[in-house]
């Protein structure tokens, strides 16, 4: 499959670019561990005053932290750097090079930049949620694991489409470098279950900046809270957004190349 082959090539470039810098590995490891420690310490403080938070026990919240790290790492691995590079290339005109290549431009721009050391976050996050699940003595059956996988993929697709839509806006509004940071800032809220927040914030975190689908929904799958309704909703939304973002992208390219709309 072309997509996988190209993804592999981009990853390889990302790795090659970084392998020379072993210090970066250590620094990223340090920062990831520090981030993890912060999250766990925060939880410890909260749980010194209570036994449960909005129906979630401490270890269940640790599972959420694991998912938060895992998904955050995956986003910062490919999606974030590639979308930032896309916006830059629109501004500097180097997008033209991508457009003269005989491969689907959306694919090329979506995988073009890889921050390979963010894999540490992915691995760390995965490790954390395994440990948390063990401590919970949670019986994660095949169905639940599958649901988790589907929820992760759906969440990933939703987040990717969201970023792509934002980045595509740079075809019209040149000064949108800042726009991507909206997600980064709001993602912090994903460390806590979205059900905690007041309705207006919950809505914002679900449908305006899709943090809930990235973290809470997969964590719900693991802790046995996921309803079939939510899961199918996530999958439906993922499909709609993938199609929608592709259409918007195509529309953006047509605008960029001066085609009459």
């Amino acid at each position: 499959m072309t997509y996988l082959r190209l993804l592999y090539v981009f990853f390889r470039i990302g790795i090659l670019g970084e392998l020379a810098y072993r210090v970066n590995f250590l620094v990223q490891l340090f920062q990831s561990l520090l981030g993890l420690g912060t999250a766990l310490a925060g939880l410890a403080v909260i749980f010194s005053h209570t036994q449960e938070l909005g129906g979630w026990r401490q270890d269940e919240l640790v599972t959420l932290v694991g998912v938060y790290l895992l998904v955050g790492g995956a986003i910062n691995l490919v999606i974030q750097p590639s979308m930032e590079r896309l916006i830059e290339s629109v501004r500097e005109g180097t997008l033209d090079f991508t457009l003269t290549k005989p491969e689907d431009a959306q694919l090329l721009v979506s995988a073009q930049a890889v921050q390979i050391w963010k894999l540490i976050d992915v691995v760390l996050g995965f490790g954390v949620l395994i440990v948390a699940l063990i401590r919970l003595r949670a019986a994660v059956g095949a169905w639940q694991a599958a649901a988790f996988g589907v929820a992760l993929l759906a969440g990933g697709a939703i987040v990717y489409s969201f970023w792509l839509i934002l980045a595509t806006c740079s075809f019209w509004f040149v000064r949108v470098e800042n726009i991507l940071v909206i997600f980064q800032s709001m993602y912090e809220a994903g460390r806590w279950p979205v059900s905690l927040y007041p309705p207006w914030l919950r809505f914002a975190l679900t449908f305006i900046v899709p943090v809930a689908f990235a973290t809470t929904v997969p964590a719900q799958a693991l802790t046995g809270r996921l309803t079939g309704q939510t899961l199918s909703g996530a999958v439906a939304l993922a499909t709609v957004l993938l199609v929608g973002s592709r259409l918007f992208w195509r529309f953006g390219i047509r605008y960029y190349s001066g085609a009459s709309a």
Partner: protein
Amino acid sequence: MRDLLDVYVQQFKTTLAAQAQYRAALVIWIIGHIVDPVIYLVVWDTVARSSGGSVGTFTTGDFGAYFVLLMLVNHATFTWIMWEYEYRIRHGDLSFALLRPLHPIHADIADNVSFKLITFVFMLPIAAGLAIVFRATLPFIPGTWVVFVPALLFAFIVRFLMEWTLAMAAFWTTRVSAINQIYYVAALFLSGQVAPLSLMPFPIQVVATLLPFRWIISFPVELLPGRLTPGEALTGFAAQAVWLAIGLALLKIVWRAGVRQYSAVGS
């Protein structure tokens, strides 16, 4: 003194017109300044409600007031100076600052304050809105408002000195983000952003009191709703004075060392 004032006015005008690239990062921070307190507010609100309406000396209304106030005080005292210096040193812009017959910190303070004069136009209504939505309760004690202003002012100065001195680290290393992260994590826990300090484990409270963190954010926030006795308030001001002196001394030393390093290495 008149010249110094002039510098500040001119800097204000420059800030209004400035389109510096790293300002994009500031937008992250502003959103974070709003989102982070809201997150912890919601969390503590939930804890309080499931614990019979309060935790420690904080009712749900108190939490509302605490975090909204925290948001404003944090925003009033925050700086981005560490990123600024890393940027300047990397791009060689520092040379211009070094050529001026004025210590660069003045321009930096002016820039900082001017920026906030603009952002507070947005922050205040947002804070008010949040206070209403989360039903914050703030007891009105006229005396505390009087002491709040100098407390905030000193908090700003001490924090600025600290972070400015920390920014000097950029002279010696490019790993500024790692250093900054350590600093922010410390500030997170020790300045009352995760939870009011009185709710933190005792050892943390001790460390926070001995280090400057409590005095640059938490202190004014504790002061206004009248949570401190007059004795405690005085201790607070004394602590601020001590850290102010330490800050000024460190500033001088590190700046001189930094400039020597910079001119030795070249821009």
